[in-house]
């Protein structure tokens, strides 16, 4: 066990973590921030994506100790200050970009990282960026549409609801 301290969603937190405690375990079990999900054990699904020092990271690929001193943002820290949905979250709701919601936190975190890098991504760029995020429910149509809408692009021409 060793002490780890980090800033999560703007708050300083600390706890004891074994050397092999993953960041996702620390977030879910120690901090009880259960919005970050675990969908696989091979770093393929992206349900666990969080931001560490502003970069999208799969929280199942990083030890909690490696995030010592870092700024971490999880899905719980994404809403606007008044608690309302932020632009990306709102676009997901408006365009039905989620069904069961299990992949959703990872999708929103990846989308936020994408739009930071590339504020007006094309359809192909969005699809390419989501390579590491699996959704089994939506068929991706409305996720891609929501992300493009969140970037301020007109998605009215994209078929159907």
């Amino acid at each position, binding site marked *: 066990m060793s002490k780890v301290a980090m800033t999560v969603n703007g708050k300083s937190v600390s706890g004891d973590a074994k050397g092999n405690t993953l960041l996702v375990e620390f977030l879910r079990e120690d901090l009880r921030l259960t919005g970050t999900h675990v969908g696989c054990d091979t770093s393929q699904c992206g349900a666990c994506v969080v931001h560490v020092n502003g970069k999208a990271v799969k929280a199942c690929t990083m030890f909690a100790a490696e995030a010592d001193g870092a700024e971490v943002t*999880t899905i719980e820290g994404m809403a606007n200050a008044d608690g309302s949905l932020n632009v990306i979250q709102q676009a997901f709701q408006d365009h039905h970009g989620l069904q069961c919601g299990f992949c*959703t936190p990872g999708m929103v975190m990846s989308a936020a990282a994408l739009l930071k890098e590339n504020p007006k991504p094309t359809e192909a760029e969005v699809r*390419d960026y989501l390579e590491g995020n699996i959704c089994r429910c939506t068929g991706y149509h409305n996720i891609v549409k929501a992300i493009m809408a969140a970037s301020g692009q007109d998605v009215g021409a994209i078929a159907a609801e």
Partner: protein
Amino acid sequence: MPKDSGIGAPSKRREDVRFLTGAGNYTDDINVHGQAYVHFLRSDVAHGTINSINTDAAAAMSGVIRIFTGVDFEGVGGLPCGWQVTDRFGEAMQEPGHPVLAQGKVRHVGDPIAAIVADSLEEARNAAEAIELDITELPAVVDMKAALEDGATKVHDDLTSNLCYDWGFVEDNRDAVDDAIKNAAHVTTLELVNQRLVANPMEPRVAVGDYSRANDESTLYTTSQNPHVIRLLMGAFVLGIPEHKLRVVAPDVGGGFGTKIFHYAEEAFCTFAAKACNRPVKWTASRSEAFMSDAHGRDHVTKIELALDVDNNFTALRTETYANMGAYLSTFAPSVPTWLHGTLMAGNYKTPLIYVNVKAVFTNTVPVDAYRGAGRPEATFQLERVVDKAARELGVDPIALRRQNFITEFPYATPVAVEYDTGDYEATMVKLEEIADISGFAARRAESEKHGKLRGFGVNCYIEACGIAPSNLVGQLGARAGLYDAATVRVNATGSISVMVGAHSHGQGHETSFPQVVAEMLGIDEGMIDIVHGDSSKIPFGMGTYGSRSIAVCGSAMVRATEKIIAKAKKIAAHLLEAAEADIELKDGQFSVAGTDKSVAWGDVTLAAYVPHNYPLEDIEPGLEETAFYDPANFTYPAGAYACEVEVDPETGQVTVDRFVAADDFGNIINPMIVSGQVHGGLAQGIGQALLENCAYDENGQLLSASYMDYAMPRADDVPFYEVDHSAQTPCTHNPLGVKGCGEAGAIGSPPTIINAVIDALHSGGYDVTHIDMPASPSRVWAAMNAVK
């Protein structure tokens, strides 16, 4: 203008707010105070005799609370099968036992042998490594046809063979079908495989068992599509716990697609162990564990023959299918290749004679059960592939051949025992032709060819049967359960409403769409209505969500209960307004006396029901709460026509889906946004089956695809934007909403569409390939091209 609330409105989903902010409550998010963790030691061989299990060293390790093996479950029931199929000779299927933990033998990779309960998961895992297992490996039975040969190793020693059943349907048609095929002007034959798939909801299965000594009550939190079914199966058949002492809770469920219908060993184990250890016990599947313990889907090997007369009318259809059951019978497994498959073989066509033979086979593989579509994708794939092949052989247009054979009059009794109440296959085909821009295809093909690619167009029709029912009929067919659903509408004093339903959303958005119906009926705001689901202690006994049944069956129960509410509320309103009950009208949340300006509001009536000072107490009880159970008179029959265009790279065999158009008839629609989303998701799963996914075993029964490294899930760049339409609507004639269900259509209709398009693309390049088995991976396509070159 679309409506902005009530039936037909694309209301935004209220559940999204919690899912988008990390505030969902999935089963793995639940930690019960003082909980222990269980790790299952699973078989790494496909078939073997357990000689001994020595747990002494493991039991002494740090943190270990107790280690369980098959012996601990000897007095306990096995996992029950919920459907008994009768074979074509009138005999019951062979039904092996399915112990919670292996007893004497292991029968598939992943079969649980021992369960280690410890203070932490890490300690449980470490202890598992110290268990000494002595297992003699036996030859594995993997191939279905080999499994049925004389002298084949038996998966279950106490059964006479590996044949679960040999089913014929309709058996009386057998000879007539043989004759029709013998005498046909043309017969098209196709042998194909509908490969094994893994449903892979993104949330792995989880179970948390809890036990209270204070009131002798057990609680199971589980990732289930149907908590009441689990309570009944586990309580009555496995653990012997009466319903009033057992609560099953399925909170937010992260996808299911069928695989979370079934009752699993881990659920029974955690419930049992919580009492035995007097500690809550939690199990969370890893993804690798999910691959070897979630029921798999499909896995059929089929030969299909379609007979046509000189005018290209379909005259007879004969199929022979081998259906893999895996090592044990999962909850509804026997029904999938039979009643959910054979009954759909007519498809959209008026083929007068059909005979379906299915041999269900035990093998040393993970059990197979319903996966999105369950039997109907298998039926559609064979039928639509053989129709396409026939069109090519006869040199006729595949759309024209389908059209010519469409069923056009309803109700229509098929030769495979079901009656389609309504439909209009021409209407969805016309819609499809409009949207698919068929006239522009030649130019798009030319453009692809300029870039060295082959472009193919594929078309497909499908019919599905949703809301399986009625209970008395399915009982005759072997179901050991009813297939009604239930809803309780509880109106509160101030007029707000809780609706307790037996259906359970695992992504379908019931919390939004169900209130739309009640709001429409009462003329009040959707926001006044909430759905309660997923907790057996709060909801009436209902059968859950699968088979696209929620709105058609449970929604109908909710309508019936709401009708009872309206009837009683009108009595109260009549009393308050001093008018005759027959004169009371309900509109926009106001009860008024016809032809007058006298009215009372919804809230006045609900308050009177709970504060009955001015109230007809001699005639009616106080309160405003009603329950209805609804047992449908028939299945519903959504249908549609799909088309896609693919590009094949002849250099690599790589297939790219460029366009996909779906024209569906779902009858009336409650929330078109949600319906489109359901179709999108089904299409991606169907495209996944057609091009990517394959659950493979080697000849020793080793599972080769046990993670996302080797099981190819469709990703965002594997699929295009879809064009979906559901404006062609023939409302269901026998349920009060006229709804049919939409959850599975996309997964049923898309695989043959894609393969038909791939074959078309190859033909355009001069490759005379007649069939490619799914997934049409680059290597398979390339090999098929080279085989004919």
